[in-house]
């Protein structure tokens, strides 16, 4: 993928005479190596998000909120001002930031347990207020950080450490499609479901982030970008197997695409 060279970047010294076709957003990503498991989608989402922040040149105006979950250390990688929230409360924390700094770009970055289980009330009410922020929702159907327990988005029959015989919907209910719920709320301006399992999906995700920041600039309301992602470790799969599982099992349950787009004026 050829990306436009961010204006803030310099060519490395040894790159003279060569055309830059690929580089990381060195301004907005720190040098800290990602701690994520091999094949995990988190690092790609981090990178794409920070690429957009660099390209829009809004590093000095962007504040992120990290959740409790695998991405709890997001602030170690994203070279922007960040706050680390209590489990489930990222959107309330983001609300607090945005309300006192309304001219900044604010986003929360949350997993499925965080956003769709323990933080459901905050999620729904943040969107219902039309809080002018971006909510990034990583849905991999499992609690990754705590070792692969059942999540609110775990699929029926899916085996996890706390659903060892498969998710029994009679006992614990069906997976919650939170994005589908949120589109009912007038405060939701833009709701989309994306992925990072192949380059084309990554390009689409990047577009979704770009749009979300544009809408935030225009004060349109809440933008909600769900990323249906993988968890090779929690799923007990190789990265390649996990991509196959995404395509064959996760995407049919969580179809990709826009769920709510702003009405054309």
């Amino acid at each position, binding site marked *: 993928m050829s990306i436009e060279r961010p204006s803030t970047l310099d060519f490395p010294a040894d790159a003279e005479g060569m055309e830059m076709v690929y580089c990381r957003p060195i301004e907005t990503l720190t040098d800290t190596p990602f701690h994520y498991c091999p094949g995990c989608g988190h690092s790609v989402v981090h990178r794409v998000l920070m690429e957009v922040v660099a390209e829009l040149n809004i590093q000095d105006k962007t504040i992120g909120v990290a959740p409790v979950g695998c991405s709890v250390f997001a602030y170690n990688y994203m070279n922007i001002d960040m706050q680390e929230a*209590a489990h489930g409360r990222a959107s309330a924390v983001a609300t607090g930031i945005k309300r006192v700094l309304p001219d900044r770009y604010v986003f929360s970055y949350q997993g499925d347990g965080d956003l769709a289980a323990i933080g459901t009330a905050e999620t729904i009410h943040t969107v219902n207020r039309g809080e002018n922020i971006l909510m990034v929702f990583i849905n991999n159907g499992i609690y990754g950080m705590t070792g692969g327990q059942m999540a609110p988005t775990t699929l029926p029959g899916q085996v996890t450490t706390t659903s060892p015989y498969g998710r029994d919907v009679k006992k614990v209910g069906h997976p919650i499609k939170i994005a589908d719920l949120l589109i009912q709320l007038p405060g939701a301006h833009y709701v989309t479901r994306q992925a990072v399992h192949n380059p084309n999906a990554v390009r689409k995700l990047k577009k979704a982030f770009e749009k979300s920041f544009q809408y935030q600039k225009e004060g349109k309301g809440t933008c909600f970008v769900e990323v249906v992602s993988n968890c090779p470790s929690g799923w007990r799969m190789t990265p390649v197997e996990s991509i196959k599982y995404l395509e064959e099992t996760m995407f049919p349950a969580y179809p990709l695409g826009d769920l709510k787009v702003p009405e054309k004026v």
Partner: protein
Amino acid sequence: MEEKKNKTGEAKLMKGNEALAEAAIRADIDGYFGYPITPQSEILEYLEREVPKRHGLVLQAESEIASINMIYGAAGAGARVMTSSSGPGISLMQEGLSYIASAQLPCLVVNIVRGGPGLGTIQPSQGDYFQAVKGGGHGDYHLIVLAPASVQEMADFVFEGFRLAEKYRNPAMILSDGALGQMMEKVIQPEEGSLPKIKTPWATTGKTKDRDHNIITSLFIKPEEMESVNLQLQEKYRKIEKDEVRFEEIKTDDANIILVAFGLSSRICQKTVDLGREKGIKIGLLRPITLYPYPYKRLNELADQVEFMMSVEMNAGQMVEDVRLAVEGKVPVHFTGRMGGMIPSPDDVLHEIESILDKQNVLQD
């Protein structure tokens, strides 16, 4: 206290909750986030009514959990923010308060205490003393706790609370009760704009080229790092304990019995002091104004001159433990109080003192 210098204008008859809310506007709060609960809803109501006409921001959240996390976010962004609630709502905030204390963010939290435990009653109580002064949430931390005893102090302590919170980058709490919140008294409001804003270079306001990114977090996964954060907090608490203890003494000079009471109970005990002295019993009163830090040292000194002390509280006896710690067994420390929203009368307290004296006389005879 210091605020008196800055007061302007006429004395006005105000409800405790409204006096506190007005003082918050005068203290130039950038934001208030709250959720209704009796007996403190007037704070949110007053601010929703007045803030749009003046300055700042007020937002009714979906829960106290959301409120306290909005406070975390806004305080982390460098804003002067406050919330208020009563017992059950304050319980819901404990997780957030632990995070705020760990991340060392200044903010003001007001607890207009009602009778508990559980849903309890909406009548006044001091049953949240332990929760307020001993931590409340998980981990080793303290709030700075101020206990007003009048509507005037409901207003003044907003300023004092922010001053202390911002000086130490630590959450402060006003521990009041339903009676002080609801009753009307004369109050002279602190002067608007007389509380300067502090510099917050640590705040998440957007990373500029000239500095590293600012991180607000309470996560220190390496035990060595977590211990060093704890040591830093403890050092701060020692400094607060050294420099910020506040209390008031009434007729302690010649007293051989000392009552210890805070907030509303201290108002009651003030009357008991007078009633006792009319009967020739030399009673004095020590009123802790800061509940954390606590006036241990002064109580220990007073223990040398008295026969006994008595802690008077609107609970089952919580602060009495701190009085006992303070006097180090030098003299007996008694307790009297009412629970569940009931308020002891000055006569009740005097009667308790007299019955202790009677027992002593019997023993001496």
